């Protein structure tokens, strides 16, 4: 049997959404849903695998904004409240569905939320990063970081201060959160531009993940295809994505998540049941929204969805893992037939939130995958990038071009007619921030606080999530407001510093609201060009 080195990579990221100024803020649910459906279930799977002695291994990136939110006491308290409400709704759903075929699914939701509540309170005391750190120490996980606020870096290549700030803060936040430096970095949207590797090396990142097309179109023909990392001229390694294994899960038509028996993502009791019944579980909303309680299966190309059967779905998960491994073996054979020597490295990278949140059975799939992959007959050896780097030398050296992992391969989604207005303001904010560092090279006290907050506001305005949301048409108003708010906050600080009229009360309120990166030093925006 041909063996392959298989590197599974999960990128966990959400934009910084935290609004203590409101008693309830709907967009904070993005984090709560990911906690309930992805992060906590994933940790439970890791614990079960460990208990059963399964030698699982994968790479996970945690963006600094997600890290900040997961360790924030305000959001931790709000998640506890969210969990309480979800559990209460789960109890009511158990009663409502008695005698109904969907009762089995209702039980599943009650179990999910009960487990989440227990784990969050008792196991992690509110900070789930402890769980991931534990598995890092045990050697199952390689945890890496991403850019500070997940900026699409190629769009800022002519503003090098942004690149340096995004990477330096990422490196610092990671050490504080996980107790060791991040060896690699998940470039937001796998977006690379020539020269970025210099900044990566400055901040001691040894590798990143690259889009398949950038590697296949590398300056020199990639002798190993996408099955080995490429070395950039300064030695930083680019690990290419393997499209075939990735698409087995991400293919929207025939990818596993679209199987008819799996749970449908969109059909939700939030849109089906009486509003009076749901209202207590939608605090802060006058309108309907998804609750996470979904009782229908994907079914097929129809609006008439059949009821979801958890047993059928679990059986299909096992089949799909078998199918995935079979196809990896077939692929390995074809790679060898193409003249490849040695064990090819297959890097399969995904958004972590695909598993559990969008693809409800995705976490179970990972559990079954790790168990099957551990069998000697699987043909797979699970690896993480640092292992690959330690085991091999002499990676082919070449150069890559501007690229991202989005369809089209470049910046089409983050720069178009709907969202390009953002960049005039973010560029100006960077320019002014650099100017402020020049004017105030070493200040203390209130001015220092103001400058640090100005830097936070600049970084928050640069998140790639805002243009993406605007482009894709979901919660556009919120994304637009976020960009405008951060730019307006920055501008107010800039003008206040220029006129020496800082409103301390306003600054204090802002510091409490946008409180990420507490150790940030505004001088990270010192002039670089």
């Amino acid at each position, binding site marked *: 049997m041909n063996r392959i080195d298989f590197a599974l990579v999960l990128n966990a990221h959400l934009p910084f959404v935290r609004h203590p100024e409101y008693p309830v*803020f709907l967009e904070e649910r993005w984090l709560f849903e990911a906690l309930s459906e992805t992060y906590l279930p994933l940790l439970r799977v890791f614990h079960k695998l460990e208990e059963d002695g399964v030698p699982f291994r994968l790479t996970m990136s945690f963006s600094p904004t997600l890290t900040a939110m997961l360790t924030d006491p305000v959001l931790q308290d709000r998640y506890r409240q969210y969990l309480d409400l979800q559990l209460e709704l789960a109890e009511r759903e158990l009663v409502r569905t008695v005698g109904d075929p969907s009762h089995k699914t209702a039980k599943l939701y009650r179990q999910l939320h009960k487990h989440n509540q227990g784990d969050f309170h008792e196991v992690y005391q509110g900070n789930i990063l402890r769980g991931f750190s534990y598995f890092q120490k045990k050697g199952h996980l390689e945890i890496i970081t991403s850019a500070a606020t997940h900026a699409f870096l190629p769009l800022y290549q002519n503003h090098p201060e942004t690149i340096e700030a995004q990477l330096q803060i990422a490196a610092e936040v990671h050490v504080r959160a996980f107790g060791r430096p991040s060896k690699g970095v998940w470039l937001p949207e796998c977006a690379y531009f020539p020269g970025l590797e210099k900044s990566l090396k400055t901040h001691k990142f040894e590798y990143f993940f690259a889009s398949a*097309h950038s590697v296949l179109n590398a300056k020199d023909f990639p002798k190993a*295809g996408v099955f080995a990392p490429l070395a950039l001229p300064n030695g930083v390694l680019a690990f290419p994505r393997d499209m075939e294994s990735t698409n087995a899960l991400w293919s*929207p038509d025939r990818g596993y998540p679209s199987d008819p028996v799996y749970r449908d993502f969109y059909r939700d009791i939030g849109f089906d049941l009486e509003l009076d019944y749901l209202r207590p579980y939608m605090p802060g909303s006058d309108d309907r929204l998804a609750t996470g309680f979904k009782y229908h299966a994907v079914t097929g190309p129809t609006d008439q969805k059949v009821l979801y059967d958890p047993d059928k779905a679990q059986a299909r998960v096992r089949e799909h893992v078998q199918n995935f491994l079979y196809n990896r073996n077939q692929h390995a054979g074809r790679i060898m037939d193409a003249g490849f020597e040695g064990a090819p490295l297959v890097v399969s990278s995904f958004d972590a939130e695909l598993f559990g949140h969008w693809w409800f059975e995705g976490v179970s799939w990972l559990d079954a995958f790790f168990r099957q992959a551990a069998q000697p007959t699987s043909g797979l050896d699970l690896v993480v990038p640092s292992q690959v780097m330690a085991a091999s030398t002499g990676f082919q050296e070449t150069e890559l071009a501007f690229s*991202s992992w989005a*369809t*089209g391969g470049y910046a*089409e989604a983050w720069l178009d007619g709907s969202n390009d207005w953002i960049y005039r303001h973010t560029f100006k904010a960077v320019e002014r921030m650099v100017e402020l560092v020049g004017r105030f090279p070493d200040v203390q006290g209130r001015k220092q606080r103001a400058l640090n907050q100005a830097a936070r506001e600049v970084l928050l305005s640069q998140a790639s999530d805002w243009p993406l949301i605007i482009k894709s048409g979901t919660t556009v108003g919120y994304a637009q407001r976020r960009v405008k708010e951060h730019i307006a906050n920055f501008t107010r600080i800039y003008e206040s510093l220029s006129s020496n009229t800082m409103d301390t009360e306003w600054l204090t309120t802002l510091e409490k609201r946008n409180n990420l990166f507490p150790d940030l030093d505004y001088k990270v925006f010192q002039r670089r060009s």
Partner: protein
Amino acid sequence: MTVLLELSEKENLTVDEGCSRQELIEDLLEVYEDDRRERETLQNLIIKIEQTKFASLSTRPSASFTQEPVLPAFYDDYTVDLVLRDPSWALVLWEVRKKDLDTWTQDPSFRGLAIRVLEYAAPDTSCLTFFPIPVPQGAGSRYLHLPTPGRWYAIELHAQFERESRALARSALLLTPPELPDDPKDRPGLTPEQVRLLEVSGSALCETARERVEAAPSAFPQRIGTWDDSAFQDVAE
């Protein structure tokens, strides 16, 4: 003019006899703009998956989050920025100081603002070529087709007068990717072995090639796009 005629032929543009250089540039820009709009209609798999993170709240913002700051349209400065969108399209952002612009508009010799696109083989070398594009007064951005792959570009913002052109601002240099095929297998000069390696590397599925298989809109809400997965092998019966 020869280059413009070559580009016109490449874009299947009918060129009228006696067509001026400026008219040709404008026609080409229009074609490129149409092409850009067409590309934007494509379905984007990554976006569709990422947007499910934000799907629970439909499309309206929080009711409690109502005060929207108003940002200035311009910052009353001389700036020009060049931002690369894909190998051949870039966004140019510019602005001028209002007071100066008001003064110039009173001057009968003022012909308007223009951006000058400068092409270089490498940084710190002489400009290979440049072409000006007049920009409407009051505008501050436009998408621009950068004609040659693998070249460095910079933009200068100019105030044009009857007898002179005043440079107001200049962008940093930006490198466009070399000419790359959508499917890496189309790279010239490959051996059959190299083609086989690219095939098993998923060249037909990679990000630049996906455009053509995701172009059709999704018919069903539970689907996140359409896909031709004929390249996938199913478990044998």
